[in-house]
């Protein structure tokens, strides 16, 4: 009887407690990846290879002065970032990390995420408006128009997935992929792949990520809707943004990429090599590599020892995952998080690759390309799925 509430409660505490530092590290990864794409090194000073940079950033944001513009609409100004972050975090509640690790299995889970996303937009719009300043207002305007437009396309992509799954419950969607023995992105003889692409493009726009980051376009609008925010309120917006990109990646994974299932979930003999081999290689490989290759090159002694500790820890995690009892529980969330991490990487990759769209291009893509394509994809999948 204890298990009924224990896991959800622990999960909640873990997510609320751990996601902020994780978001910090996603930022670090983002900076590092972008730096690598631009042949730079990225943050290197705080900790070995900048590994402690997120902590420094968090400390800075906490200690910064909380500036509230005099003519702002104070009540709304206070609440807006909280609204954004609140909705982003609540969305985690219906994301299943694995069969055991989930908070709630809601009958309409997918729609709940959609609904929370649409309420979260209000945080951006109201924040931009309440600042009583030009750039934030423009950012808020752009954001409301953009999000309303792309929500439709995203919904059309989701409908395709739901047609294959026959349910809106996030857990049941994954279970159905297990019984049908296929990740839905490969379903219907490939007809689902465009549905996923439409969904993902719209999801990138929904989360205000580049190349659709017009609400905060720094080269035109200073910082868009959060220009007037500083200190920890600004950090709340950042948290919300990274929470949202985590959630949309999780939805992509759950609906299209098999959730917590390993690749080839119906091929039995692959279980051992995949469930044991991949985690071990992924953790121990970089761990050993950082001990052998990275650490010796660092001149500054604390950094060198730090790197050794990090490498050791990674190797240790890889080793722990080889214990059968641990592996049985951890393999599913491992696959889930690995896929989510892949999509987070793709979003960073987009940012490093694509130039930002102009506003009219953005609207054209939403209304004239994605929505007709989405409707076509639904029709195609409806027909192919019936065969």
């Amino acid at each position, binding site marked *: 009887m204890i298990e009924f509430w224990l896991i959800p409660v622990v999960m909640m505490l873990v997510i609320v407690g751990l996601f902020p530092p994780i978001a910090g590290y996603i930022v670090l990864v983002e900076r590092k990846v972008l730096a690598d794409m631009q042949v730079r090194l990225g943050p290197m000073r705080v900790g070995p290879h900048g590994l402690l940079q997120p902590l420094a950033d968090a400390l800075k944001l906490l200690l910064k002065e909380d500036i509230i513009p005099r003519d702002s609409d104070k009540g709304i100004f206070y609440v807006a970032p909280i609204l954004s972050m609140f909705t982003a975090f609540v969305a985690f509640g219906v994301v299943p990390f694995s069969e055991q690790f989930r908070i709630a299995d809601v009958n*309409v889970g997918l729609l709940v995420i959609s609904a929370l996303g649409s309420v979260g937009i209000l945080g951006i*719009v109201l924040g931009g408006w309440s600042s009583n300043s030009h750039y934030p*207002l423009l950012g808020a305007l752009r954001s409301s128009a953009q999000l309303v437009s792309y929500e439709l396309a995203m919904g059309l992509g989701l409908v395709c997935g739901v047609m294959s799954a026959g349910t809106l419950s996030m857990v049941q969607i994954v279970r159905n992929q297990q019984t049908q023995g296929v990740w839905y992105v490969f379903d219907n003889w490939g007809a689902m792949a465009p549905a996923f692409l439409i969904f993902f493009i719209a999801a990138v726009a929904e989360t205000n990520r580049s190349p659709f980051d017009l609400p905060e376009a720094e080269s035109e609008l200073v910082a868009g809707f959060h220009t007037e925010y500083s200190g920890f309120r600004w950090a709340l917006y950042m948290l919300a943004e990274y929470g949202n990109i985590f959630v949309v990646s999780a939805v992509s994974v759950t609906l299209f990429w098999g959730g917590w299932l390993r690749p080839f979930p119906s091929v039995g003999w692959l279980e051992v090599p995949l469930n044991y081999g991949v985690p071990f290689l992924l953790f121990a490989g970089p761990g050993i590599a950082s001990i052998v290759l990275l650490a010796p090159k660092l001149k500054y002694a604390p950094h060198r020892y730090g790197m050794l500790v990090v490498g050791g820890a990674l190797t240790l995690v890889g080793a722990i995952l080889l214990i059968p009892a641990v592996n049985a529980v951890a393999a599913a969330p491992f696959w889930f998080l690995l896929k989510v991490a892949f999509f987070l990487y793709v979003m960073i990759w987009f940012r490093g690759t694509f130039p930002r769209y102009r506003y009219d291009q953005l609207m054209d893509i939403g209304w004239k390309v994605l929505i007709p394509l989405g409707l076509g994809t639904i029709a195609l999948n409806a027909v192919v799925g019936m065969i």
Partner: protein
Amino acid sequence: MTLEAFFFYAFTTLALGGATLAITRRSAVHAAISLMVSLLGVAGLYLLLNAEFLFVSQIILYIGGILLLFLFVIMLVNLDAGRGLRQFHQRWPLGAAVTAIAGVAFAILWSRAKLPPSQTMPDVGNVELVADTLLQDYLVPFEVVSLLLLVAVVGSVLLARKRA
């Protein structure tokens, strides 16, 4: 008070309070936010009735769609110009009187009414029930709604497009 009763009154308060604020606030954005609170209250009532599909649809459509467009329009117009204007509806006493009379009339009728026994939702998937009802029993209204929306789209484009 049971938990259900507590939530019922909480959501009702949200719905009614939000609605009242929506028509009394001077600032258009505050009114829109109050409306959002009211709509959330209604959504909560749907949830209490085990109609979770309706609950989520209400939030997606009204808050994520309609209210957001309200805010979009409000931000486009110059609010400062409106703030200085005298409110032209000066008939609060009349409105209050009519509301009170209608309320009393409804209360009297309500007290005399024989209401059908309340029904509980069968515990099958709410989405499935909605789908079955919508695409079988109410197939024609469901299709006719699309005609209604088409007319609305054509009409609004026609009235709003640039003058030739």
